[in-house]
């Protein structure tokens, strides 16, 4: 918690600094992100990686954190502390980073219900495969369909739960809300574990 207070404090103390651009291209506002999301946006521990996410997607999340539509006690004060242009600068910065090479030790995800849902969906329920929108290997497609590969399992599971509970906007055309409501507890655990075990963006497995 103390770390969040420090970051929040930084946000409040140096608001004007956030709009400034360093010679390397990183906006100063990004400085408040790296403590948890890593200097290259590669994530750490339970904190999701940002690299590989689209500009529009990041911006939408920051706005939703700030407004409370995406309920998150950590991100709300941070996002609220950023101006519109600062949120945009952060989105531009992280969406422009090159993917970090995957951890070579990452194991292949096991066969099982998570893999089946990810690769084939469950069409008896009109449930598409995750990879149809999130790309082969969960590497993401374009601005609006973020990569899932290599994100922490707990993070992915929390997001699916948040959609089911209405604690996160369902995204463009309400797609994820509609999908999450057709997943039960076992499904979302399994599918989160599957994508967490895949190598992260830029290092597609041969699945």
């Amino acid at each position, binding site marked *: 918690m103390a770390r969040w207070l420090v970051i929040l404090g930084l946000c409040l103390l140096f608001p004007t600094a956030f709009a400034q651009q360093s010679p390397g291209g990183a906006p100063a506002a990004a400085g408040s992100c790296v403590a948890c999301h890593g200097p290259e946006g590669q994530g750490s521990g339970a904190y999701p990686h940002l690299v590989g996410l689209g500009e529009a997607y990041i911006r939408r999340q920051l706005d939703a954190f700030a407004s409370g539509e995406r309920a998150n006690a950590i991100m709300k004060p941070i996002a609220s502390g950023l101006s519109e242009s600062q949120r945009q600068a952060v989105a531009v910065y992280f969406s422009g980073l090159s993917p970090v090479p995957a951890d070579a030790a990452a194991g292949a995800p096991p066969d099982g219900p998570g893999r089946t849902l990810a690769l084939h969906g469950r069409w008896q329920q009109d449930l598409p495969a995750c990879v149809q929108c999130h790309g082969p290997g969960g590497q993401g497609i*374009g601005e609006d369909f973020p990569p899932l590969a290599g994100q922490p399992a707990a993070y992915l599971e929390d997001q699916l739960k948040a959609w089911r509970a209405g604690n996160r906007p369902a995204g463009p*055309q309400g797609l994820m809300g509609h999908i999450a409501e057709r997943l039960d507890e076992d499904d979302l655990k399994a599918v989160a574990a599957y994508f967490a075990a895949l190598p992260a963006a830029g290092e597609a497995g041969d699945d």
Partner: protein
Amino acid sequence: MNRSVLTVVAGCAVLAMAAWLLAMGLTGGPEDYVERYAGQSVTARDEASAVPVKPSAPGPSSSPSSPESGQAAAPAPASEPPPRSAIPDNEFGELVRQGERIFADTGRFAGDWVGNDLSCQNCHFDAGRYDKTASLRSAWPMYPAYRSKNQHVNDFAERLQGCFTYSMNGKAPPRDGQVIQALQAYSFWLAKGMPTGEAPDVRGYPDVGDPPEPPSFARGETVFQENCALCHGEDGQGRKATGGGTGFPPLWGPRSYNWGAGMHRINTAAAFIKAAMPLGKPDLTDQQAWDVALFINSHERPQDPRFTGSVQDTAERFHQHQGQYGKTVNGQVLGEHSPPSGTVP
């Protein structure tokens, strides 16, 4: 006397029980049905195909339902294709798996014959397993069949070759080669339990109702931008996945299906869209489906492979149906500026 009546009644009861048990075995039984579909949306169509045999409750008063009681009822069509896990571990099974791979990622596994960025399963979901999008198991038992498109009887191999020529804007793979053989083995395997030569309930795309208003390009454009552009792009050219892999398919332009493909017909596209789009949340009205089908199919796409040298002549010979080929849209005759067909690598 009483004793013989009792014997007859008891005999009927035993026969009824046997018939019921037989029916349970064939259909998987109501428990199996309930378990598989519990909590899921089942359309009337699914239900009809899932439990066509409705056994009457056995009891002392029931008797065999038909006078020809020695004849067993026709087996019910399988309610769904066999699970992937049932593919056998032998040479046949390997060919089936190869067929599924080709169907799911056609450019990657049959690239020599593909001239666009589509895969079979873009229009036949779940690698051809999903019954609302012209499943393979519903097609396999219907061939050989006469097709007005080429005016002769086609077997399944020739039908598949047509998919490559038109929908895949490629070249027909040889009928005795690995690609067609694998796709046939896969289709045959999926069709287990389907009666041969009888049109299944699940065939093709479900019918879409007639549009209340004639389809409109302008309304279709609005439907497209609001419901389709997110995935297929504002310009309809699809989206590549991160790293360049298959993303969302292009709906027109040089990397989409050509002017000879079935999907360029407004009625076919409307039926597909109504049944299946947007992906996983097909909630467009009939009118919206027709409007956006017209909009999508009013853009240039690769030339009809049967092109005779003249758009007008090609249209007269091959386009006597609900399509836009040869028609003028926004001042341009569709087909006049088509990219070439059959652009295999």
